[in-house]
């Protein structure tokens, strides 16, 4: 195999773009896990719900791509806050097995509901013409949408990092992640914090569901199909760390792309094997704090 600049550039761009989708979906999962210690296996279902809202509102209401993303974010966040207040909040003190059973059951309900009301088939995302085709970057021509995803992903990670590190709300989340009881005794309204963070995380998942539909497709099985990948990203990056999730997404995105390209026989085997090795070495993930 000859490595040309074009070769390497296309691999990096393809892998990073895939990683960005992973990041956008997984960041909410990581924060809820770090903040609430809650294993939300229905996270993929919220990503799917958001994706459906985005794709269907574009198709049936004639909304543009960017406004549709905003609608998907807001509606999914709103729905998830209702779920959080009515259902999730009852299980915060329950055992992990109860939480896992509840959330996986919820994912199945989403799958069945979408199959019944929308249908079992894939919902194709129709990109606006500006995002289709190829873009000439000088050294290499690459698909425009991948480059768009990379720009969006970088913008999101910068915004999230600033929000997390530089705002009062971010400080409250960090305080609650580090020591929940101390944060509560300092007068932080933990219930409100949880609800908002949960809604925000689900909204991000919705964005990821819509943005990633071009690569990952969108059908009722989405809720479970990619869940393993989202969980791997959180496990590798460390729960509750935005930078950790970002780096883990990029590493997994690029590695998966390169391995699939050069060793297609192995399939996804390598990613799982590498994850096992990494977790044996650092059970808390690359950027997580040891518990």
């Amino acid at each position, binding site marked *: 195999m000859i490595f040309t600049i074009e*070769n390497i550039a*296309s*691999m990096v761009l*393809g892998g990073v773009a*895939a990683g960005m989708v992973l990041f956008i979906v997984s960041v909410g999962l990581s924060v809820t896990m770090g903040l609430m210690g809650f294993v939300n296996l229905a996270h993929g279902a919220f990503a799917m719900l958001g994706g459906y809202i985005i794709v269907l509102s574009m198709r049936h209401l004639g909304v543009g791509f960017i406004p549709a993303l905003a609608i998907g974010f807001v509606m999914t966040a709103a729905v998830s806050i209702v779920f959080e207040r009515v259902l999730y909040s009852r299980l915060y003190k329950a055992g992990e097995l109860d939480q896992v059973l509840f959330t996986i059951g919820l994912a199945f309900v989403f799958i069945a509901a979408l*199959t019944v009301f929308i*249908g*079992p*088939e*894939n919902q*194709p995302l129709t990109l606006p013409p500006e995002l*289709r*085709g*190829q873009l000439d970057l000088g050294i290499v*021509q690459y*698909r425009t*949408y*991948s480059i768009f995803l990379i720009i969006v992903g970088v913008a999101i990670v910068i915004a999230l990092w600033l929000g997390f590190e530089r705002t009062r709300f971010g400080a409250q989340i960090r305080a609650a992640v580090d020591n929940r009881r101390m944060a509560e005794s300092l007068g932080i309204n933990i219930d409100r914090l949880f609800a908002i963070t949960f809604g925000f995380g689900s909204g991000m998942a919705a964005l990821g569901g819509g943005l990633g539909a*071009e*690569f*990952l*497709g969108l*059908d009722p*099985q989405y809720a479970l*199909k990619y869940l393993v990948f989202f969980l791997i990203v959180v496990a590798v990056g460390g729960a509750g760390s935005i930078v950790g999730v970002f780096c883990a997404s990029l590493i997994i995105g690029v590695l*998966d*792309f*390169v391995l*699939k*390209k*050069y060793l*297609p*026989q192995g*399939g*996804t085997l390598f990613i799982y094997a590498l994850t096992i090795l990494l977790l044996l070495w650092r059970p808390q993930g690359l950027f997580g704090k040891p518990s």
Partner: protein
Amino acid sequence: MMKRILAATAALAISASLASAQEVKVGVNLPYTGIGAEFAQLIDRGMELYLKLNADKVKPYSIKLIKRDAKNPAGNDSRVATQELLTQDNVDILAGWVYSPNAIASAPVVTAGKKLAVIMNAGTAHITNMSPYYVRTSFSMWHSGYPMGEAAAKQLGAKTAVVGYTDFPPGKDELAAFKRAFEGSGGKVIDEIPMGGAGAVPDFTPFFQRAKDKKPDVFFVFIPAGDHAAAVVKTYGALGMREAGIKLIGPGDITQDTKLQAMGDAAVGLITMHHYHADLDNAENKRFVAAWKKEYGANTTPDFMAIGGYDGMALIVHIVQQLKGKIDGDKAIAAAKTFKSNSPRGPFSIDPETRDIVMNAYLSEVVKGKDGKLSQKVLSTTPNVKDPCKALKVPPCG
């Protein structure tokens, strides 16, 4: 009192046996949930449409469909469904099977159950050898792969090809068929890329990037239709492979009728080899497509899966009539071997030696009409193709 009970029991028994002579129970094994759900719906609709349009051909018998969920392409659940259809529902005939692994896993159960089993999709060539009770009304992968290999070298003038395939039995079969014919006609397969399993649609970008780097004349792709197909054409367009001079070719799975319009301009110029698409120009097909749209909606279309169900039901009705509603596995197989019909796909018969189908293969190109709609134009027809895998005795077929 005792006499009356006896008489009543006897009357019941007689009426039950009469009912079983009138009503034939067909057990359907399809993935009604999960990734194959839309395929199951297409085959279901094909079967039901045949029964609706040909009610007079079924009389005086009636056909009852008993459906069980095969769930996924893994085999186990489908095997359980086959077993339950035989032992709990006591069906007279089995039908269905979208995925090859499911038909492969069900084969021993079908053999033990001694009931005719009509395969309406699963296309791995050697499946019909796995049970003497299997009859196929869909296709073998070699029906498309082999003629496509010849056409790629002779009609498209390709010297080099890269093959990308979904890594499960029919994918390997399609690769073997294409490679044998293409290399036999002077071409060279320069790379073979397994592209993940059938259970989920992967991101095709890395695989297609690899194919693009190899710069072949044609890129032959097999995927199990459906969402895989939409993703294939999208990725082909987005990576600029056409501009790089690489033609995308394959069996009709890559241009499944139900997905074609959503593929957009990226699909224009794709060349496929297949036994059916909804644009075939014959009177039987025009009637079939019109009836389909009337029944299921103007925005729906039949496709190669629907025709597998439709022709499969035609075969079942033929057998029910031949055997006068009393279905026995061995007699049913004998009756199946005499089946010939004028199907929407063209002339159709069952090869008495292999219990596999004999039919035309059409080389087609996707074109865009003035109304902006995509359709498939037949470039040439190879008549009456018998499964080449068995004709050439390629292991494990021969």
